[in-house]
């Protein structure tokens, strides 16, 4: 059903990554769980797509499918025209340089036994970029860019606060200069004031670096702020998808309306 890709309004740009009717079924003791069902979604070059949904809606699984971190049960994911399922492991790892991920729990996603700067250098080292000194310089610059004083680079992740850890994680994700940045609930474990810092940082970096972004969150306001186009997920399916303004102003699907209706305004 490629028509939906063509028809969606944001598809003026060439799609960088596209999921075609992907499904993911997990086997468990209770039986099969259909985490993602028949979802098609694409992200154009330079575009930010938001995915919103409540817990258990399958949005995180979708992100992992798009990243090729988990194989699809059915359907296929294409990154820059290549079907991820057919790319051999070695080439897939090379391809991974072009797509990076920021996770919900920054402390959990940083290597606890590496210092901050070593964490940022690690992807460069893995892909054999530069020399040790050049990697170090690059890592220091990245830390500076995300607002961490490089003088603190020798400290370990546990010595930073949650917001700073997320900054380090972002620096690491950007080290390989990826085309696609997938953010899985990057601010939901953070306090309100820190969340704002990270959102501002992400917005700024996205513009500066011309990144394509997949932004996953349960917080509609956060998605509204960052995304060009939004997909609403419920029980493994995308129930509605559209340009951000249209979707938030004139939601069509009852579930979207219910979701929007439940949000509590702060100032209005």
């Amino acid at each position, binding site marked *: 059903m490629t028509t939906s890709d063509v028809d969606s309004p944001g598809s003026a740009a060439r799609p960088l990554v596209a999921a075609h009717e992907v499904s993911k079924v997990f086997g468990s003791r209770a039986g099969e769980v259909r985490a993602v069902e028949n979802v098609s979604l694409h992200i154009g070059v330079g575009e930010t797509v938001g995915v919103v949904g409540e817990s258990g809606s399958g949005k995180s699984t979708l992100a992992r499918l798009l*990243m090729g*971190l988990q194989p699809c049960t059915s359907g296929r994911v294409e990154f820059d025209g290549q079907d991820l399922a057919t790319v051999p*492991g*070695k080439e897939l*790892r*090379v*391809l*991974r*340089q072009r*797509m*990076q*991920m920021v*996770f*919900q*729990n920054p402390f*959990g*996603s*940083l*290597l*606890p*036994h590496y*210092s901050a700067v070593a964490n940022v250098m*690690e*992807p460069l080292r*893995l*892909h054999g970029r530069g020399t040790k000194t050049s990697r170090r310089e690059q890592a220091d610059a990245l830390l500076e860019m995300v607002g961490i*004083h490089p*003088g*603190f680079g*020798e*400290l*370990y992740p*546990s*010595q*930073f*606060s949650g917001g*700073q850890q997320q900054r380090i*994680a972002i620096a*690491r994700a950007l080290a*390989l200069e990826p085309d696609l940045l997938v953010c899985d609930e990057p601010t939901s474990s953070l306090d309100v004031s820190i969340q704002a810092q990270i959102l501002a940082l992400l917005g700024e970096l996205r513009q500066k670096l011309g990144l394509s972004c997949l932004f996953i969150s349960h917080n509609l306001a956060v998605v509204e702020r960052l995304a060009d186009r939004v997909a609403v997920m419920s029980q493994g399916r995308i129930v509605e998808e559209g340009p951000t303004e249209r979707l938030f102003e004139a939601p069509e699907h009852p579930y979207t309306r219910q979701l929007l209706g439940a949000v509590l305004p702060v100032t209005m």
Partner: protein
Amino acid sequence: MDVIAAAEGLHSTGLEPDAGAAGAGETVARARARGPWRKAWDRFKRNRLALISLVMCGVLVVVAFAAPWIAPHHYADTDYEALLAGAGADGHLLGTDQLGRDILSRTLYGLRTALIVAFGAELLALLCALVVGLAAGYRGGRAEQGLMAFTDVMYAFPSYLFAIVMVAVLGRSIFALIVAIGIAGWVTQARLVRAQVLSIKQREYVEAARAMGASGPTIAVRYILPNAIGPMLVTTSFAIPAAIAAEAGLGLLGLGVQPPTPSWGGMISEGTRYLLSAPHMLLAPACVFALALLAFTWVGDGVRDAFDPRGDRR
């Protein structure tokens, strides 16, 4: 929730002050890098009993190594003029046994036997456990199925019994004891490694590493292994006293090293036979034996608390 967060923050690792130092303060010099190892060592150092025990263990190892030079007599030398002599007898600080052999010397050589067997067995067990446990935990598949099936059997096959059977098969030599105790012990440790690896595998940083484009072996060796070493060190430090006890236990059953080479278990067994006439025969080896076990166990306790500060001690 943040009551708990606050309370735990205070309790735990000194994380909060560090975070503050790295965050608010502009003084770079104030913040000291403290990785997981550094932290564990700092915590270990604060535990005085563990530190003293560590020194004690060092002394025991040196003494065991130097037994031939330190011991006043050879362990098999018999002094027929002083059979069952009490402690403090002429030339025999801790007395002699029924054959007139010097108890102090035999105890020291017994220590030597015990430590050689214990370290040897643990090394063997650890090697097997690491290889199989890591493979089973990380790769799953055959290695895992095999390990689990094997452990199921070994669960019903108590390690002591297994060791007894092994010694019955291999004969009574130091090598046989090392193999018997090592083989009997590795399964439990392999399971622990596997459990540890499985839990680390669930951690987000492993997924993050995959997302960075790291290959399987890189993840296993560079990211999982280093973080599994701490808990493994805890297990190992408890396994050493257990192996010491196993060596003596086999000696007690008459399955230890070939006499007259002394083993603490054999000495205890003989001691109970001459209990009423010569209690020192039992007392001396039992006390040194207990001391050695406690020293190693306290080091283990310290290591555990160092790596798991939220453990039951606090």
